[in-house]
């Protein structure tokens, strides 16, 4: 009589423990970062995953199917203006299950926001989360609207670099 009782007790405890382990793994894993900060840092030292507006415009003009442009602004902004062929995935909902097929595929995904900062942050976030082949359109929709809608697609040189120093530090030193 005694032995089956202990066996049952043991089995129950084992099951509860297993359940707890599974539950803790599942609840913690849902939005866990897949790429460590150190790995991502090394990746960013090698390449910044930026795309200049001119390259982007050539891709669109050639209808290069390897790329997809993703507008991460809100639907109102997207309806108002978006880059030809771009799809809309609002930043605040980008981790929703519904958008997984748009982010987890073999295409090169080019993110853009109004400027470049938000898209860059979302790109870093998605890479931390384990997605790949993500790029950031430099200058975003604002620069595009002002500079990319006219001129020869393959001749005009459009450059945008947020990290380019716009003043001369030497002149500043002389002034002092």
């Amino acid at each position, binding site marked *: 009589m005694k*032995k089956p009782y*202990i*066996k049952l*007790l*043991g089995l129950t*405890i*084992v099951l*509860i*423990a*297993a359940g*707890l*382990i599974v539950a*803790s793994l599942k*609840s*913690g894993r*849902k*939005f*866990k*970062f897949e790429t460590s*900060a*150190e790995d*991502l*840092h090394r990746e*960013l*030292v090698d390449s*910044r995953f930026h795309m200049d507006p001119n390259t982007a415009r050539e891709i669109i003009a050639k209808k290069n199917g390897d790329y997809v442009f993703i507008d991460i602004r809100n639907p109102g902004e997207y309806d108002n203006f978006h880059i030809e062929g771009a799809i809309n995935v609002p*930043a*605040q909902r*980008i*981790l929703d299950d519904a958008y997984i097929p748009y982010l987890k595929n073999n295409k090169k995904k080019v993110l853009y926001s109004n400027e*470049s*900062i*938000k898209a*860059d*942050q*979302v790109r*870093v*976030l998605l890479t*931390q*989360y384990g997605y790949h082949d993500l790029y950031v359109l430099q200058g975003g929709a604002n620069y595009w609207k002002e500079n990319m809608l006219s001129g020869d697609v393959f001749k005009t040189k459009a450059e945008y*670099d*947020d*990290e*380019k*120093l*716009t*003043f001369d*530090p*030497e002149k*500043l*030193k002389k*002034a*002092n």
Partner: protein
Amino acid sequence: MKIRFVLSIVLVCLGLVAAILPQRQNSSMELDAKQLLNEIQLENYMISVDEMANALINNDPEYQLIDVRSEEAFKAYSLPGALNIPFEKLFDEAWAPYIDQVARKNVFYSNGTTLASEVWMLTRQKGFKNNYILRGGLNNWYATVLDPKEPVATDGEEAFFDYRARLGMKQFFTGEGTPASTSNVKAKKPVPRRKKKMVAGGCS
């Protein structure tokens, strides 16, 4: 024998549970992707150049500027009191006490905003607190503090008030001109400046 066997399994399981439960509590310190996504939207990790200029003028010890550009760029020009942690060396052991601390507000800056923002994203992934970004970086610093543009009449009184304040900042940081003599702005009565909201902590 069987009882011992069952007991040992029970002990092992309890040990496993004990090992996992505290880990879950600690993990609240670290962020997951969803939490970081929410933080990105809040933008309370951005420090304006005006706020930073005032902090430097007042010698506020709470702020620690961190220049994340290369050593050469840092040598060519840097902000007063800034520490240079080049992007490549962010996770070097030597810098850990500076980027993972609770005593001061670290303000990362680069030429623009992108590089500083990437540094911020990486430190937030690690769960480090008290890190901020100088909005617009050195380019914005130059345009706003070192070379402020005079507003036009349609800009409103607050723009003129800001302009006069920035001329004062310019004088402080460059030693050029005096705000009174270089300014021919007639702002009749300065509108009381909206009280600046204190920047909330990087992590709740």
